[in-house]
């Protein structure tokens, strides 16, 4: 197929489904499994072969109050999650997630996940940051683990179950944009088959977005190359809002200077952080739980140690994660994956050497606003949350919000399976009813998608080739985000960031491509991914500039305190004119009393 046909719908392959799931990480696959088992006509679209989705890299584990090693219950888990969220999490959704946790982890075990085991033969659990017994009284042991490869174990198992269920996959297909019908309702999706360079139109009554996070926005990050927030940007382009985009989690222990993740499990199993003086400094920031404080607290502590000159190494730019006092057998058994990472990327064996770490961009708490059935929400003119017909979002790309301003370790794998299943159940019921929405032959509004495809095929030009490149713009974007929107932000850095982003946006509009082929054209793919990242950077910068307080992972040096009076509310960002509106936090759980915001001490 020649390039001139990319934007011509007459050349597109057309498919019809009841529902299309975009993304084959843990959320997408859990959702797909539910729907495939109920005999719905469902397809999963994935940018990579499913087991290469980034859930595969999750290490430490999945939280559930099983109580296999010490007493536990879901209500304590709920409290910890709300406190961890710095009270920005919605308490109805958090109760829902924590109550589902034990059953859904047992379900994963029955699906085949090779969890590590206790001597009693039950699922092994380890302590993680921010978790407690009796509402903050003592450390809980709640994170269910398959060594330190829990994400790999869960993702492969869910893919295997989908093979058994006969799920339809479109692998190595890039989701270009949502398709709306003439009434403006969601009617499907346009995708690009990467290997063949062919455009396909998937018509569907419902679309489930499960496209994961977007930490490729930052220079040092734990994320995969594929984590470019494609579904999030699609939502913004569809005129819908993104919620709480100022909240990005910096994981305290990334390999310094490189960013790869060294799991919180390292501290859960007894590892400690030390500064240049050899001092285990977390006691100065979290006197009770020390190294097992929430991630935002530990990340800030490391950044402060380095800023105040107590960093390690010739450039005093990192701290050390020290496991050398642990039994080497424990490290080899419980933490083999991160030991491998340190050996490969640092040449250091954690059994006998501390390793250099520094906070690294890891996870987005914000995303596509949904309720706890996974239904995407927008805001009416009257300011009410209203569901968008036919559109769901689950996993890291969604903002339910169960993580609020800071996610607890072990809650992400839980989030993806709980809401993956919940959304599928809601969708199952919706699909069982009569179709009052878009029909297989409704006229579609394809013009915006055609324009976008046309732009990137015409960008290939031998004559007027720019000096600039997609790779250079992406590098500059990541540097700007890292510098002006990292662990600490101020009015000044964020204002500067907004200006930098406008300049980068202008460069992206003009850049040309050198690759003219249809088959596996990575340059075009990266250009469209960069468009997505750019859109999300702008959403982040404007949301962060507006929030004049410090809460969870959003630390404004010019507004160091949390301000519940003014800011106990979710941000909603719309692409048009960078408009921001707000919506209240849910403080009313489903069956128990709400937890009132309190000062957060660990």
């Amino acid at each position, binding site marked *: 197929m020649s390039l001139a046909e990319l934007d011509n719908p007459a050349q597109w392959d057309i498919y019809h489904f009841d529902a299309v799931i975009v993304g084959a990480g843990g959320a997408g696959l859990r959702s797909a499994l539910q729907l495939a088992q109920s005999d719905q006509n469902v397809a999963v679209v994935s940018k990579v*072969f499913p087991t290469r989705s980034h859930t595969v890299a999750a290490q430490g584990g999945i939280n559930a109050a099983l109580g296999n090693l010490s007493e536990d219950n879901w209500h304590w888990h709920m409290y910890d999650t709300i406190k961890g969220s710095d009270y920005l999490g919605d308490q109805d959704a958090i109760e829902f997630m924590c109550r589902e946790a034990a059953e859904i982890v047992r379900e994963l075990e*029955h699906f*085949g996940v090779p969890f590590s085991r206790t001597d009693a033969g039950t699922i092994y659990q380890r302590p993680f940051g921010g978790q407690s017994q009796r509402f903050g009284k003592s450390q809980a042991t709640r994170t269910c683990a398959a060594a330190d490869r829990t994400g790999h174990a869960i993702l492969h198992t869910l893919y295997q179950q989908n093979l058994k269920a006969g799920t339809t996959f479109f692998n190595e297909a890039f989701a270009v944009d949502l398709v709306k019908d003439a009434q403006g309702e969601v009617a499907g999706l346009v995708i690009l088959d990467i290997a063949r360079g062919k455009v396909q139109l998937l018509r569907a009554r419902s679309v489930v977005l499960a496209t994961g996070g977007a930490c490729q926005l930052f220079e040092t990050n734990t994320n995969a190359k594929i984590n470019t927030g494609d579904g999030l940007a699609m939502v913004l382009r569809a005129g819908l809002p993104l919620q709480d985009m100022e909240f990005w989690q910096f994981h305290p222990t990334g390999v310094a200077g490189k960013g790869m993740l060294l799991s919180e499990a390292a501290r859960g199993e007894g590892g400690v952080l030390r500064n240049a003086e050899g001092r285990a400094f977390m006691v100065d920031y979290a006197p009770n739980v020390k190294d097992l404080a929430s991630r935002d607290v530990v990340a800030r502590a490391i950044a402060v140690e380095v800023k105040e000159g107590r960093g390690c190494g010739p450039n005093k730019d990192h701290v050390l994660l020290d496991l050398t006092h642990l039994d080497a057998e424990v490290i080899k058994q419980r933490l083999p994956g991160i030991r491998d990472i340190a050996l490969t990327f640092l040449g250091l064996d954690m059994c006998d050497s501390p390793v250099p770490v520094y906070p690294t961009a890891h996870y987005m708490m914000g995303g596509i606003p949904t309720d706890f059935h996974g239904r995407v929400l927008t805001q009416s003119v009257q300011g009410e949350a209203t569901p968008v017909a036919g559109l769901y979002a689950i996993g890291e790309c969604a903002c339910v919000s169960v993580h609020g301003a800071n996610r607890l370790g072990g809650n992400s794998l839980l989030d993806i399976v709980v809401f993956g299943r919940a959304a599928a159940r809601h969708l199952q019921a919706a699909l069982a009813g009569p179709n009052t929405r878009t029909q297989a032959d409704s006229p579609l509004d394809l013009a915006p998608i055609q324009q976008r495809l046309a732009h990137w095929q015409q960008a290939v030009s031998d004559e007027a080739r720019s000096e600039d490149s997609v*790779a250079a713009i992406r590098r500059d974007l990541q540097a700007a985000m890292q510098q002006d929107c990292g662990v600490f932000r101020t009015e000044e850095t964020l204002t500067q960031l907004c200006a930098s982003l406008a300049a980068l946006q202008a460069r992206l509009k003009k850049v040309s491509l050198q690759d003219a082929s*249809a*088959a596996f054209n990575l340059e075009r793919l990266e250009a469209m991914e960069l468009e997505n990242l750019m859109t999300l950077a702008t959403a982040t910068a404007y949301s962060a500039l507006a929030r004049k307080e410090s809460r969870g992972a959003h630390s404004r040096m010019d507004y160091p305190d949390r301000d519940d009076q003014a800011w106990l509310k979710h941000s909603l960002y719309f692409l048009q004119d960078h408009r921001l509106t707000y919506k209240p936090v849910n403080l009313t759980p489903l069956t128990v009393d709400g937890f009132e915001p309190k000062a957060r001490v660990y």
Partner: protein
Amino acid sequence: MQFSIYRYQPESHDEPYMQSFELADDRINDDTMLLGALEMLREQDPTLTFRSSCKEGVCGSDGMNVNGQNVLSCITQVKSLPAPVVIRPMPGLPVIRDLVIDMDLFYRHYESVDPYLQPTQPNQTIDLDHELLQSPQERERLDGSYECILCGCCATSCPSFWWNPDQFHGPAALLAARRFVIDSRDITTRDRLEKLDDVYKTFRCRNIQNCTASCPKGLNPSQAINELKSLMLKKQVD
């Protein structure tokens, strides 16, 4: 440092060819991985095409043949490689473009070994109030099998797989098969062994052990295949 890289662009070239690239030595540090070097080369020539994603050896996207050995580029240090570094797609499967191969056949073999736990009879519902118990010793037997990342380094270095790619399951699929055969929670062991007991599917393995030598995760498919064979033998004797 000199690189010689296999190029194949089906739309503009009928035949594949090798292309030379050069990277300034001062851009290569002790800890530069081959993936990082390839990304620098892509800045010289954005049409150079290869798969990659996680950058840390867990997603299994970036298998390629480097100086004759199948490796993951993201965990291979450039300085460990003698120059010129000759990079080709992993052998034995069709090339889509440059270093990107079509792995469909590899995936189909994986699917054909029923790679999912079957702890209950087909019509029995699972009991979500209880975990299936498994002792630490039973669980330990899964170590070395479940960690596979389906990168394909093993199968595409296996002469038996090159020769009978449509009939021999290959090391990755058989490693997965072994994982479910020995999982104490699975009740279909006999059926699994019967299905695998085939002159091509399993017994085309000739113990060449390229699979084990090339596994970037340090797994041992060769041993797993031998274990399957001896379990089949035991089943015959029982």
